[in-house]
């Protein structure tokens, strides 16, 4: 690489991990050229399609990402699928380094019989549906059932339970697509049961999300005081933890359990130490109930606290079951993948050959594909910083392979040759303006486009040939 030639970096994905990668790269070096490849027509990944539509303040994080896409050193290629439209090798031919930051699109399974009955679906699919994700607009979800079970106690589980019980007034303040608002307004769900495998001290949700469940106009939160009580091992864990937010969260759970339950048309039951054993079908073949077992908590040898079934069973009526037991990464063709952990094998963000452990030159990973689907949006900032540090160290050390075709124009030429209709940053800016303007007319943050065809039509472009 000559001094004048910019460092060419391809970033796969445009969610928080990708955007923080871009931010750290731009801050560290002036002489680079970054191409961001996004599978969908709109950037920002789970901020747009995962963060709950009634949490607009959190979605506001995109304000920090917006200037990055407008930086003259950055190009956005939206509606371009690496794996379908472009191969990893196409990027490697044109860039010194490729950073996989495509997140975790699949979901983890519960591994219980009946998991695939109609009416049982991943929480991630429901989240994508109510956020207007173009791949999920046609999701079959029967909201005419009266009872739902959400398995898992992370913030996604809390989001799902809350969205299920929002009132029409609450729904109409969000940027949810019209189809979702209409379906949820007509919903007959009365009872939502959130099932946590372990106890209050091990629940992954955060206190503000729980507190929010006590302030809903149309639903009450009910917690059994007996389930809110801590076993001795958990009490010791809370006592020992330097994290005071844990103690505060447990205290909040116990306060809610002890307080009178307000009278509301709908109820969310937050349960602890209960695991599903089996999903039972009704006469129509769809899920009708969850057979569950109560757990006791036992200290694991290494200091963790594990759930152990007691044998005491119960049946919970449920016409809908959402499994919210985690996201799961999907492989990117051309890069290795660790099926057990659901990540691209790496050391501090350098992709490694799983057999030899040796780094694959010019290949990097950031975000959920790097560490697994955990943490909050901000976790991706130090995570991406680590990956960028490795990348720049390797660039300085001359360890990056020289691309055969580093001319940035060659990317566009290739996409044109393959008939791929991509959207760039100015297209996204226009989409954003149109969505916000449509939202303003309805007193909502935005009205999202939910299909590429609609976007292309609004931009006055012909849809790509099928």
């Amino acid at each position, binding site marked *: 690489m000559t001094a004048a030639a910019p460092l060419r970096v391809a970033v796969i994905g445009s969610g928080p991990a990708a955007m923080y990668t871009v931010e750290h790269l731009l801050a560290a070096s002036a002489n680079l050229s970054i191409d961001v490849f996004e599978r969908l027509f709109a950037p920002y990944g789970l901020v747009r399609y995962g963060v709950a539509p009634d949490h607009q303040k*959190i979605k506001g994080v995109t304000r920090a990402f917006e200037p990055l896409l407008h930086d003259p050193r950055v190009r956005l290629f939206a509606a371009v699928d690496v794996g379908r439209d472009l191969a990893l090798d196409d990027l490697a031919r044109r860039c010194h380094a490729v950073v996989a930051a495509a997140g975790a699109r699949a979901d983890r399974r519960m591994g219980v019989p009946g998991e695939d009955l109609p009416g049982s679906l991943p929480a991630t699919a429901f989240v994508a549906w109510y956020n207007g994700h173009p791949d999920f607009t046609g999701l079959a979800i029967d909201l005419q059932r009266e009872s739902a079970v959400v398995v898992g106690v992370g913030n996604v589980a809390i989001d799902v339970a809350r969205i299920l019980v929002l009132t029409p007034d609450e729904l109409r303040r969000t940027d949810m697509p019209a189809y979702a608002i209409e379906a949820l307004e007509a919903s007959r769900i009365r009872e939502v049961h959130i099932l946590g495998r372990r106890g209050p001290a091990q629940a992954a949700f955060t206190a503000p999300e729980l507190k929010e469940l006590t302030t809903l106009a149309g639903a009450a939160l009910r917690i059994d005081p007996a389930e809110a009580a801590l076993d001795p091992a958990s009490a010791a864990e809370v006592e020992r933890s330097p994290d005071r937010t844990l103690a505060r969260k447990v205290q909040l759970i116990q306060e809610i359990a002890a307080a009178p339950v307000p009278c509301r048309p709908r109820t969310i039951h937050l349960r602890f130490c209960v695991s599903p054993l089996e999903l039972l079908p009704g006469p129509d073949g769809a899920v009708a109930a969850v057979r569950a077992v109560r757990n006791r908590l036992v200290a694991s040898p290494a200091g963790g606290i594990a759930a152990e079934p007691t044998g005491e069973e119960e049946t919970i009526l449920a016409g809908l079951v959402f499994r919210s037991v985690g996201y799961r990464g999907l492989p990117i063709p051309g890069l290795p993948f*660790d099926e057990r952990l659901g990540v691209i094998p790496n050391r501090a963000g350098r992709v490694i050959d799983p057999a030899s452990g040796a780094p694959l030159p010019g290949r990097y990973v950031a975000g959920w594909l790097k560490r697994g689907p955990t943490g909050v949006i901000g976790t991706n900032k130090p995570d991406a910083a680590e990956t960028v540090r490795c990348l720049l160290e390797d660039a300085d050390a001359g360890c990056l392979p020289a691309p055969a075709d580093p001319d940035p124009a060659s990317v566009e030429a290739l996409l044109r040759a393959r008939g791929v209709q991509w959207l760039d940053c100015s297209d996204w800016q226009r989409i954003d303006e149109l969505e916000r303007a449509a939202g303003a007319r309805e007193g909502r943050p935005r009205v999202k486009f939910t299909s590429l065809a609609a976007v292309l039509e609004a931009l006055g472009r012909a849809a790509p040939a099928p």
Partner: protein
Amino acid sequence: MKLAEVLATKGTGVACIAADAPVSAAIAELAARNIGALVALDAAGAVAGILSERDIVRALAAGRPLDRLAVADLMTPGVICGRLDDDLEAVLAAMTDGHFRHLPVVDGSTLVGLVTTADLAQALLRSLAGRLVTLELRLEAEIDESGVGR
């Protein structure tokens, strides 16, 4: 945060040695890989113990004949193993209290990795840094909404 996440960014593979291998082979392996401990496996491939540099230093100090000993003679047997879904903070506390620095991690009965207190501390630091960034984001959003500073 779970141990799975710590392992994810550490790279795959665990440095192992047969429990009946000579100590000299273990020393060569530690030096070649520039690491501080090896997981000793029994004939069935199950975790039999951990041989750390401290075990070797102690044997040297006691004047034991290293050239005639096997890994099993020096290793710490009956080691505690972590599981992929064990919580990081609880494990770190247990390791600190129990004064052990290396923890083999198993998935069922399969050895899938080894974490050190340093790995866990680093992961905890990263997790806390992430939470701090998120709090800053929330604070900025509140300030934007309230109009303070405009």
